[in-house]
């Protein structure tokens, strides 16, 4: 037993070193990725990483950038802070990557940011909520391509509700019991007050919940006629379904996570709205087609419409590396990122532009979708509306 184990361990250690040696040997853009590929949040954080990989593979197949290939070193952090920290250290100090990409739960941010500061390597959040450090005035090393954005989302949503609502709005709010979601919903509550909406009930729901009905019951008894939820999709949709089971007939709006398009089609509920910054695949833009057949070719295990976030990450990466040129280092990549301006080809409402003090984007575009019974299809409840970021 023990010998066998020792032998195995030894072999594996050799393997690691070999692997790392390889990483050093080849001359390529070495990019590090740590994401929650397994564990609780992998449903949300897995697809972006998958999509990024897909995009980079296609770039490499097409000859790479500035004649150099891109080497993605992907590591799994299972959404565990300590694991993420170790991954970051490994990628930064051993594979010495010139850019670190993070797609995981917010709990992993602190350690990874600390590591990236220590190594002075830029860090790009992708498909993971944007920390406040990327908004102007942005911190030097942190960038974010993710669609959703604390604060702006609530603002846009409440404006939409105000516009769509006939009579007085009795607002119900739903958050998941994680600091991030709670913070945003609290902000929404504040803002609703200033906009003259009455918040009749606010539910903070713990992630593992056997039955959402008790929470829904409260919302219903509070007599809310609009419910806004800014939380992971599971919480949003399960609360909604529970409400409907209680024969609650009013309007529900949630953030359009990567699952949204498929879910709207599943639920077919005309009064369920989603607010998002990514266009749905039903628009059938060329870029959508491109993604779709890339997914088909590579036989990825996630549906194409979940690939948008990662694809945008890919676009940004490509643009940044083009600018950075060759030979490359972390500093060059950082300066490149600060000047990046990417045409999102309709995946977003407009281009994604970064400047020295704004690492989020100059303008945040929102679009609202819902299910239309007459057309038996998803329709736009409201087309792109831009919000200046400052």
């Amino acid at each position, binding site marked *: 037993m023990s010998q066998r184990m020792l032998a195995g361990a030894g072999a594996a250690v050799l393997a690691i070193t070999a692997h790392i040696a390889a990483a050093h040997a080849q001359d390529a853009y070495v990019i590090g990725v740590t994401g929650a590929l397994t564990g609780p949040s992998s449903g949300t954080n897995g697809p972006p990483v998958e999509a990024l990989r897909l995009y980079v593979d296609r770039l490499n197949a097409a000859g790479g950038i500035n004649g150099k290939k891109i080497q993605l070193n992907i590591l799994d952090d299972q959404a565990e802070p300590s694991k993420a920290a170790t991954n970051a250290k490994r990628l930064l100090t051993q594979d010495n990557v010139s850019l670190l990409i993070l797609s995981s739960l917010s709990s992993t941010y602190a350690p990874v940011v600390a590591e990236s500061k220590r190594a002075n390597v830029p860090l790009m959040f992708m498909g993971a909520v944007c920390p406040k450090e990327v908004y102007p005035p942005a911190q030097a090393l942190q960038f974010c391509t993710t669609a959703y954005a604390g604060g702006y989302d609530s603002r846009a949503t409440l404006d939409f509700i105000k516009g769509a609502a006939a009579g007085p709005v009795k607002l119900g709010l739903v958050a998941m019991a994680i600091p991030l979601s709670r913070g945003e919903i609290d902000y929404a509550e504040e803002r609703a007050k200033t906009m003259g909406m009455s918040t009749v009930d606010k539910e903070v729901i713990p992630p593992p919940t056997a039955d959402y009905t008790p*929470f829904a019951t409260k919302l219903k008894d509070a007599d809310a006629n609009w419910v806004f939820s800014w939380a992971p999709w599971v919480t949003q949709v399960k609360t909604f379904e529970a409400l409907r089971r209680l024969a609650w007939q009013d309007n529900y709006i949630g953030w359009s996570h990567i699952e949204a398009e498929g879910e709207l089609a599943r639920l077919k509920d005309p009064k369920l709205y989603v607010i998002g910054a990514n266009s749905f695949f039903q628009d059938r833009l060329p870029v959508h087609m491109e993604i779709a057949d890339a997914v088909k070719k590579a036989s990825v295990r996630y549906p194409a419409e979940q690939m948008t976030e990662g694809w945008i990450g890919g676009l940004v990466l490509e643009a940044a590396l083009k600018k950075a040129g060759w030979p490359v280092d972390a500093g060059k990549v950082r300066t490149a990122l600060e000047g990046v301006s990417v045409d999102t080809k309709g995946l977003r409402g407009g281009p994604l532009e970064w400047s020295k003090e704004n690492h989020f984007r100059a303008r945040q575009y929102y679009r609202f979708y819902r299910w239309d019974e007459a057309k038996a299809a998803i329709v736009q409840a409201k087309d792109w509306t831009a919000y200046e970021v400052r």
Partner: protein
Amino acid sequence: MSELGGQDADASPLTSDLWHLSSESVQLVVNIIVLAAIYALLACGYVLIYRVSRVMNMAHGELSMLGAYLLFATATLLAHHPIAALIVAVLMSIAVGVLVYVVLMRRMTGEMVLAAILTTIAIGILLRGVIVLVWSASEQHPLQALGFTNPSLPVFGGARISTCAALIVVMTALVYGSLFAFLRFGRWGVRMRAAGQNPLLAAQRGINLHAIYALAWSLSTLTGSIAGMLIALDSGLDQSMVVIGLKAFAPALVGGLDSLLGALCGALIVGSSEVLAIHYVDPLLSDVVPFVVLIAMLTVRPWGLFGTREELDRV
């Protein structure tokens, strides 16, 4: 309902209050019953295994989840025969239980209890990995795959319950009824109890312990899987199922780990306290409440409502 109440309110506050109160409280009772049923159905799995082998099966959550995923798999394969899919899934889940015992836990019989528990934890980790591997981590919807719908049924007093939730309640009643009968009158049931009380003597009296343990594991996995399937049918299927299974272990302990009746009452207590906490105190508490109840019970009556006191010294 609520709009109706609202209109009444303008007319005569008194009646509307009464009306509201009643519908609200009825809904509350319904919610309690449903949650309690879920917990009870999951909790009996812990009890079944514990009372024969003194092992706390920490993989119960994962096993329940696996059952649900098996249903999803059969549902997608046998798209047009939902009933067949259900039956196959149930049979497979039983097989899984037996397999887990025969292949793994069998070797742990007689080892340090803590080691056995850790083994179940390891099994849980393995299962989680395998499930992500096979079905990916994104949420699945067995209900659609089976082609069923889950309409909500009106209960008296304006309260409502979804079909699957109602099914859970019925199933729980069925499972517990048959388990009680089996353990009381069935010959294998008596053997099971005997093996639980004194495995050595049981073996010397010609009872095949491995058969008994395998039986316990299969029953436990079966009940757990049924719970998992019904929850998945009611509200979708993803990794969070694990934690629900783990939470159900509080009721089992509150009721007394070696008593089915206890598990039932424990589920009622925990379920109601959780729902009431959500409704009257603070929704945030809902995942702490079970453990608060647990601590309270452990300080007042450590061996649980219906548990046997000796258990304290046993483990």
